[in-house]
């Protein structure tokens, strides 16, 4: 009879705020794991996870200025998979939703399943969820397109101005080396972004620069501006993962077309 303990993997999200957006299920998996890896960019959030389970290990030591994030994420995946192979019940707690903007979570699940072991991801609250609540929008109303800023610049996506647009991490627009940790924002990338938007919107069309609140004593950052003004915005340290939210003001909803069943 095989009595060797089989490892397993559960990947959870802790939400954008420090503790209050963690689901009951996520909390329970953190509490009952043999080991918890943390990919949380907030010390208060780390403290909240550590208070649930003393066997926590941060993945932060793998980040280095000048080192490609692709390598960092591969090393994170290796570390997670290795612990599962060793027979541990592994929980990995990532900030936000563990499947949104998080490469090692998906990679680790694929690799653990390939080994014939259990691996599952639980949903968490993402920045987009916070945006919907804070700005009071319903993305289903007229539809919604959501992109990461650098991909938006490099790939020839079709922007539909009748739909709500969400462009993530605008401060890093055009930064594709993946090795920059402390950049504030990229002026040429923002200028290019504004140029593309100007092909679809009037020059004074309003957009909102948004950043969800991570700490309960802070409000979300909600700054109304115009695309061309965003390009000359003064750098600040938190700008790089802000997003631009563009709604349909001044542009009416796309009229109903002929349906396929007609």
């Amino acid at each position, binding site marked *: 009879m095989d009595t060797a303990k089989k490892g397993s993997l559960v990947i959870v999200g802790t939400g954008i705020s420090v503790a209050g957006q963690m689901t009951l299920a996520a909390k329970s998996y953190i509490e009952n794991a043999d080991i918890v890896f943390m990919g949380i960019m907030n010390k208060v959030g780390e403290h909240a996870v550590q208070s649930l389970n003393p066997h926590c290990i941060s993945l932060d030591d793998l980040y280095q200025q000048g080192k490609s994030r692709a390598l960092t994420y591969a090393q994170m995946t290796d570390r997670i998979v290795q612990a599962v192979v060793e027979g541990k019940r592994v929980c990995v707690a990532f900030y936000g939703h563990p499947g949104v903007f998080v490469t090692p979570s998906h990679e680790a699940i694929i690799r653990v399943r390939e080994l014939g072991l259990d691996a599952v991801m639980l949903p968490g609250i993402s920045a987009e969820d916070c945006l919907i609540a804070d700005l009071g929008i319903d993305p289903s109303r007229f539809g919604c397109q959501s992109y990461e800023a650098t991909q938006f610049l490099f790939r020839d996506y079709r922007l539909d101005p009748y739909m709500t647009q969400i462009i993530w*991490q605008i401060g890093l627009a055009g930064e594709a080396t993946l090795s920059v940790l402390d950049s504030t924002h990229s002026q040429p990338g923002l200028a290019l972004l504004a140029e593309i938007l100007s092909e679809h919107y009037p020059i004074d069309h309003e957009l909102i620069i948004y950043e969800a609140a991570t*700490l*309960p004593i802070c409000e979300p950052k909600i700054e109304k501006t115009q695309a061309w003004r965003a390009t000359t915005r003064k750098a600040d340290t938190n700008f790089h993962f802000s997003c631009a939210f563009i709604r349909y003001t001044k542009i009416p909803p796309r009229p109903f077309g002929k349906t396929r069943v007609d």
Partner: protein
Amino acid sequence: MAKSIVDFLVELDTNSKLMEAYKKDPVATAADYGLSGEELKLIEDKNWEEVSKRFDDIKKAPRVINY
């Protein structure tokens, strides 16, 4: 003994009664919780930039890696 602002922030994020009290009177609520004078000053001055600087590490915000 003074309590930590880290514990206060976790409690504030998970305890709606404490949050309601904080919204009505931030400084008194933080003082009742037991924050130190230095940490109380951050709340009194609404110095969120300093609070964010102490606890957030935006360098570790996840990114897309496939361009």
